[in-house]
């Protein structure tokens, strides 16, 4: 048991924070736990969860991707435009995933193969994709989508189940393979020590390259699953999504320096940050404080990590943790 406590130390503290929040809500506003509300809460946060899965992989290999919000907007609009050409929905799904994957491949080439710093490359992409999209669409919405676009033409309740099942499936596949497959373990190996991984025969640049492609593909899936909940697509969605995803991953216990973190933690992080906004409304607290509380939670997660770490007296070098985030 002690080892489980140690391995999932961060995840446990994030889960404790989530539990505390839920207990407070349960006492003050029990209507929060009405099935309808939980269903809405889950469906609303699934797109963020998908992005956060990809972000976990990116952060595990010691990189970061701040361009996902812009990629999300590009994929959303692309989904609408493709659906309007009369393409069947399964093909639209595949095409949007490919478009996301291509954008990810561009990041992956520059970061993995050319070894450019990920924060700068994705900063450039954040600006470029967003501005290119604005230039082309001039902010216009994609309207007049075909009948079978919203909920894949299956109706709301079935559609919500489909979205849930796709997300659950992806989460399970990634969580399992990250733990149990060699491919998954190489992601940890590269993030812990790229040089050691290379000596162990792992092609580190290739791993980074593919992680970014997966990130892009997940952005595509997320954008499509989000888009099909509505009957029109805004030209400017996903602003600030990257910060949401990164915050969720970090709150969930992943180390920004790479090599440490789990998808269970990310799930808890998404749940925690996604619940706060709704919980505040239920508690009757002014929405003005939402951002401040989110910031405080990120800092608290960091502080608790350090405090717990000191208790365990893990003999890691003092200064090792302060080295550059890249």
């Amino acid at each position, binding site marked *: 048991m002690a080892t489980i406590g140690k391995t999932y130390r961060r995840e446990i503290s994030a889960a404790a924070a989530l539990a505390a929040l839920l207990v407070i809500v349960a006492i003050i*506003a029990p209507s929060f736990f*009405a099935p309808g*509300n939980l269903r*809405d809460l889950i469906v*609303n946060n699934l797109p963020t969860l998908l992005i956060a899965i990809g972000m976990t992989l990116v952060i595990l290999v010691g990189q970061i991707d701040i361009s996902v919000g812009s990629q999300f907007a590009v994929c959303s609009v692309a989904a609408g435009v493709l659906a309007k050409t009369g393409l069947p929905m399964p093909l639209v799904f595949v095409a949007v995933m490919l478009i996301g994957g291509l954008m990810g491949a561009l990041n992956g080439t520059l970061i993995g193969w*050319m070894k*450019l*710093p990920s*924060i*700068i*490359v994705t*900063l*450039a992409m*954040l*600006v*470029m994709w*967003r*501005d290119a999209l*604005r230039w082309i669409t*001039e*902010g216009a919405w994609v*309207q007049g989508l075909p009948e079978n676009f919203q909920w894949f033409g299956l109706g709301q309740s079935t559609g919500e189940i489909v979205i849930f099942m796709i997300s659950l499936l992806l989460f399970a596949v990634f969580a399992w393979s990250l733990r149990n497959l060699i491919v998954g373990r190489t992601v940890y190996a590269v993030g812990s020590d790229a040089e050691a991984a290379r000596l162990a025969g792992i092609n580190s640049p290739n791993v980074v390259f593919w992680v970014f492609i997966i990130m892009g593909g997940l952005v595509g899936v997320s954008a499509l699953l989000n888009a099909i*909940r*509505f*009957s*029109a697509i*805004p030209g*400017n*969605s996903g*602003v600030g999504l990257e*910060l949401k995803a990164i*915050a969720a991953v*970090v709150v969930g216990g992943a180390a*920004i*320096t790479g090599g440490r973190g789990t998808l269970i933690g990310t799930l808890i992080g998404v749940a925690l940050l996604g619940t706060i*906004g*709704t919980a505040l*409304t*239920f508690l009757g607290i*002014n*929405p*003005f*404080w939402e*951002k*401040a509380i*989110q*910031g*405080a939670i*990120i*800092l608290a997660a*960091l*502080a608790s990590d350090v405090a717990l770490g000191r208790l365990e007296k893990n003999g890691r*070098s003092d*200064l090792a*943790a*302060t*080295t*550059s*985030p*890249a």
Partner: protein
Amino acid sequence: MDEAISQPQQVPLRTEQDWSARLFPNNEWILLIVIAVECLLFAFTGNNFATTGNAFEITRLSVEIGLLALIMTPIIITGGIDLSVGSMMGLSAVVMGALWRDAGLSMPVAIVIRLAVGLLGGALNAAMITKLKAPPLIVTLGTFSLFRGIAEGLTRGIENYSGFSPSFLFLGQGYVGGVVPTQLFIFVPAILFFWWWLHRTAFGRSYYAIGFSQEGSRYAGIKVRRRLNFMYCLSGLLASLAAVIYVAHLGQAKSDAGTGYELTAIAAVVLGGASIFGGRGTVLGTILGLLAIVVLQNGLRISGQPTELAGILTGVLLVITILIDRLSRIGVSRITVSEEEFEVKNWQIGVLSGVIIVAAVIVAASNWMLVRSIKEQGGGATSATQRQNAVTPAGKKNVIAMMPKAKGDPYFISCRKGAEEAAKELGAELLWDGPTDLDPAKQNEVVEAWITRGVDAIAVSVENKEGISTVLRKARAKGIKVITWDADSEKDARDFLINQATPQGIGETLTDEAARIMGGKGEFAIITASLSAANQNEWIKFIKQRLAEKYPEMKLVATQPSDGDRDKAFAETQNVLKVYPNVKLIMGIAAPAVPGVAEAVKQSGRTDVKVTGLSLPNMCKPYVKEGIIDSFVLWNTGDLGYLTVYAANALSNRSFKSGDTMIKAGRLNEIEVVGDEVRLGKPFIFNKGNIDNFDF
């Protein structure tokens, strides 16, 4: 990091290197070429780009971001990062505003306290980074949300401090000796200080050592933690100083000050040759990087190019610079003779020239398209309206510059259609530019560029009354006709207002519609734009006033933000429906919010809840037909744009002047003018019966 070992300047043990290596250790000279090419290009394509006035204007615009970029330089040199500086600006802006106005402190005292707040915020970052040994990226990501959140919480998003004394505003808006912008007297010493500090003192040089290796620096006797503490505190302090200048520049202190500035500052530093891994970077490089970005933005604006290009080109430039840097360093680190280094450098120039040529082609092509479309118009000048209006005294075309609050907002996109229609009929040239998202600072920037460019008329939808009025007065002083449309500036800063509806009129119509639907009693909720949106807050004020006067049995139970995002409006509405189950009506008062509200109500299956608000017909059409949206309020946005261009054109032709009681506006026939307001008419109520007649 491995490139720390392959540093070229570590190799020679000579005490003095070539002057070029000392001045440009990271190939910053490339940026000089880029800036030179930009200037050359824009001197040809833009009007009045290459003037002293414009040169000073460019530097003025770069001061706030420049200060952030300066402190970001040592931070990045140590391998750290500070994402919280933009949010810090927002926090210290509202702290100063509150101290000065609400606590009645004098301005200098308020400034000192606010600088202390900056210092405190910086200290929080520093403590988390050095005491808790948390990565700077995550710490400052947390404080990025925290500082902005506190600023919004303190002001409830609504508070907007303005009415500062002229002597304070002089700091941000004035000219010393009539030409030199005041803030340069802060910026230039700051640059010199940073240059001296980082390049000429042992204290400053120690940051490079820390960037190469923290562990090594510690063994070498450098007090790493103290140095880092000092630097992050200074970062908070400088962000506050930037906020002082920002507030003086715009004449308002609001919680959204400095949004997104941190990214531009980081881009400038990295463009200037600093390595994000630490150990490299110069003050000169940072300044050149900053100029490359600002000149590009300004130049595109002056040549009437889409400003989205600035973002795209900056991104390309950023990637290319670090790519070249990476490749050249691989070349250098191989133990080879200088010949290969030469090859690499030639190759670098090749790539750079390529990029610049591509950019030039884009600019040239769009210019050519513009010229061609104008020629086509000129050739087909046969319609009656064109013969009537297009012939101005000198036979020249009027240049009408028109600015929305936000280019990406569907509301303004629909206004643009009408404006373009009018410009075509009149044979006038229409410049349509503005911030991509709500951003008062950007609005000032665009007007400044138009003044430099020299246009005949400027028509602005004003986001921040106090902030923009100074610039508009300047435009009027230069003989440019100024019109405000959609939202007004101060009265003496413009010739006419194209008034589609007063905030009071909108507030009252919305309330009356809500009352009609609800039968005059019950609970309702509002989904607004962002919590700091000035227009919406004004409307809410009049809605509350109207409720108190006429409908005491109606109760506004919640006002939730949507940030102009349809998806967020959707989620907020779902919450409202559950938390306040007695709500009978939800009012969305931002164009993208209403479809989100309607979709949420539809998916909840609550047929007893109705939706109303202020939005565009095309977005709402499906929901109106399904009966979810009972009705919504708006004016004909296309007509608004159309009328604005007609009025602007008539003003510059002197065929319309103060004192007239009506104006002829093409297909709208005669429009009433009262005093200095051109009245489009009352807000229109769209419902099931009439919505099919509209397509915008």
